C-alpha cells in the first residue's frame, strides 16, 4: 500500500473542499472496497479524508412522504430499518443478498453506490485494463468473461457494476444528493448516477472530484410486491450473474431492473408498459442492444428466465 496522510473531516463542505483541491485525495467511509483496492495498489490515494464524523447517519422522513437516507447509514442499518422493510422491501432484499454480515456492518450507503467493478482483469495489475489504466486496452474482451457485462458495455470495457443495493434503488426511482467544496448541492436521479463506459471506463459515475454524497432519497413508497432475485454461483456471499429487482403491482404492471449485466443497474422503462406481453417480450426489449461475449451469452437467457420466475412469484404472492 502506498503511504498516505489521513484526517477526519468535521463538515461535509470542508471534506469536499479538501478532496477537490488536493490531487490524490479521496474520501473514505466504510473503506471495505477502497482498502481492498489500495492493498493491490489499484487505488493509490496520497491523502484520505475520513468522513465518518460528518453525522450523515440518520434515516429521516421527507416532506413528500419518502425517506432520506444519510450517506453514512450502514448497509445493515438500512436493511433493518422498519420503514424500509415495510415500505421498500426490495431495498432490504437487495442489501441482504449482497456481501457478508461483516461487510454490511461496515459498508455505507454512499460507499455501496461507489464500489468498483469486480472484473478479474481490473483486479489484476498485470493485465491490460482501460478502467485501471486508461489506454492500456481490455484483457477481458477475448478473455474469461463469464461474469462480465452483456449490455451498456463498449469496445473499451465490458465490466459490470457489481452491487445489489443500487439495482433496488433503480426500481424505486431513488436520487443521490451531493455537495461540492463551494457549497453547491445537486440531486442526481439514480438512473443518471452510474455511467455507461463508452471511451472512458475509468469514470464509474457522474460525480466530480471532491463531490461528496450526503444522502440517498426515496420517493413515496411504491405499492405492490417487492422482490429481489439474485442468481449466483453459490447461494450466499457471491456476486450476481444476474439479479432482478422488481416491484409488481396488482394489475400486473411492474418495474424491473437488472444487476450483474451492465455498467449500471439496467432498467428500460419503455419495456414495462405492456406487461401482458409476458417476460420473454419484456426481456427481449430490455436487452435489445445486448452485445454478449461467447462466455456470457447465457446471461440473456438467464435474465429472461429470472424475470419470468420473479413475475410468477409476484403473481402467487398477490393472489
Amino acid at each position: 500500500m502506498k503511504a498516505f496522510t489521513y484526517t477526519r473531516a468535521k463538515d461535509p463542505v470542508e471534506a469536499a473542499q479538501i478532496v477537490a483541491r488536493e490531487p490524490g485525495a479521496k474520501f473514505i467511509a466504510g473503506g471495505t472496497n477502497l482498502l481492498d483496492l489500495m492493498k493491490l495498489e489499484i487505488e493509490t490515494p496520497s491523502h484520505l479524508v475520513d468522513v465518518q464524523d460528518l453525522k450523515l447517519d440518520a434515516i429521516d422522513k421527507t416532506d413528500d412522504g419518502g425517506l432520506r437516507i444519510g450517506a453514512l447509514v450502514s448497509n445493515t442499518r438500512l436493511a433493518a430499518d422498519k420503514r424500509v422493510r415495510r415500505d421498500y422491501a426490495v431495498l432490504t432484499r437487495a442489501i441482504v443478498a449482497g456481501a457478508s454480515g461483516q461487510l454490511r456492518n461496515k459498508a455505507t450507503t454512499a460507499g455501496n453506490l461507489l464500489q468498483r467493478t469486480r472484473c478479474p482483469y481490473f483486479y489484476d495489475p498485470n493485465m491490460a485494463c482501460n478502467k485501471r489504466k486508461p489506454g492500456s486496452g481490455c484483457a477481458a474482451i477475448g478473455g474469461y468473461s463469464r461474469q462480465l457485462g452483456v449490455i451498456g458495455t463498449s469496445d473499451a470495457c465490458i465490466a459490470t457494476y457489481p452491487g445489489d443495493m443500487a439495482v433496488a434503488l433503480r426500481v424505486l426511482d431513488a436520487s443521490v444528493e451531493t455537495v461540492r467544496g463551494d457549497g453547491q448541492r445537486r440531486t442526481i436521479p439514480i438512473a443518471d448516477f452510474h455511467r455507461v463506459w463508452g471511451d472512458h471506463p475509468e469514470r464509474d459515475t457522474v460525480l466530480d472530484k471532491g463531490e461528496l454524497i450526503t444522502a440517498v432519497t426515496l420517493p413515496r413508497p411504491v405499492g405492490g410486491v417487492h422482490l429481489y432475485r439474485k442468481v449466483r454461483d453459490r447461494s450466499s456471499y457471491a456476486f450476481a450473474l444476474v439479479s432482478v429487482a422488481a416491484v409488481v403491482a396488482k394489475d400486473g404492471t411492474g418495474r424491473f431492473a437488472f444487476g450483474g449485466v451492465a455498467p449500471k443497474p439496467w432498467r428500460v422503462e419503455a419495456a414495462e408498459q405492456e406487461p401482458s406481453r409476458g417476460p420473454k417480450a419484456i426481456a427481449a426489449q430490455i436487452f435489445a442492444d445486448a452485445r454478449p461475449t461467447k462466455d456470457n451469452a447465457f446471461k440473456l437467457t438467464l435474465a429472461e428466465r429470472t424475470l419470468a420466475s420473479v413475475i410468477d412469484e409476484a403473481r402467487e404472492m398477490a393472489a
Partner: protein
Amino acid sequence: MSEGLDVTRRIMLASGGAAAALAAAPGAEARLSAEKPDSPPHLPITLTVNGARRDLTLDTRTTLLDALREHLHLTGTKKGCDHGQCGACTVIVNGERINSCLTLAAMHHGDKITTIEGLGTPDKLHPMQAAFVKHDGYQCGYCTPGQICSAVAVLDEIRAGIPSHIQADLLEKPGLTAIEMRERMSGNICRCGAYSNIADAMAEIAGDKV
C-alpha cells in the same frame, strides 16, 4: 464515534510524520526535525481492546488487524486472505462484527474492540468457545477465532431482528434456526469444512439462550 483526530493537524502529517501529531509537548519540534523527511505518515491512535485502553502510534496504512496482531501482539485474530473474503480476521467493534483486515486502525480511534482473547480465556471459556470444543467445530483451527467472534455476533444480530437473505417475511423477527445461522455465517470460510459442527455449536448456544 470517536473523539476526533483534529482535522487541522493533518497539514503537519505530510511532512512531519508521527511527532507532529503527538506534538503539544515542548521539544516536539526537535523531534520533528530529526525525522527523515520521507518517513511515512504516522498517527497517534487510542483503542479500547478487550476492556483495556491501548495507546499506539501507527503508520496510517496499518489495518486494524495488523494493529491487533503486530503492535498489540494479540495474535488470536488471524490474517487469512487480507481482502475481506474469508472472515478469519473477524472482530467485534462497538458491538458489531467486522473484517478487521478491511479497515484502518486510524478509523477506529476511540472505538471498543473485542477480539477472541477478550471473549474468554483458557481457564474461563466463553460459552461459544466451549461449544466449539464440544462439537469439534474446527480441524486446523485457523479460521476458528473469526468463526467464534462471528458466531457470537450472529446470535446478537438475530435477537436484534436484523433481517437476512433467507427470511421469508421481513416484518417478522428472524428465528434462531439452523438455516438463519448458516446464511449469516457465509462470510466465514473454513477450508477444513467444519461447517456442520460449527452450526451444531451455534445451535447449542442459541438453544441455551432462547
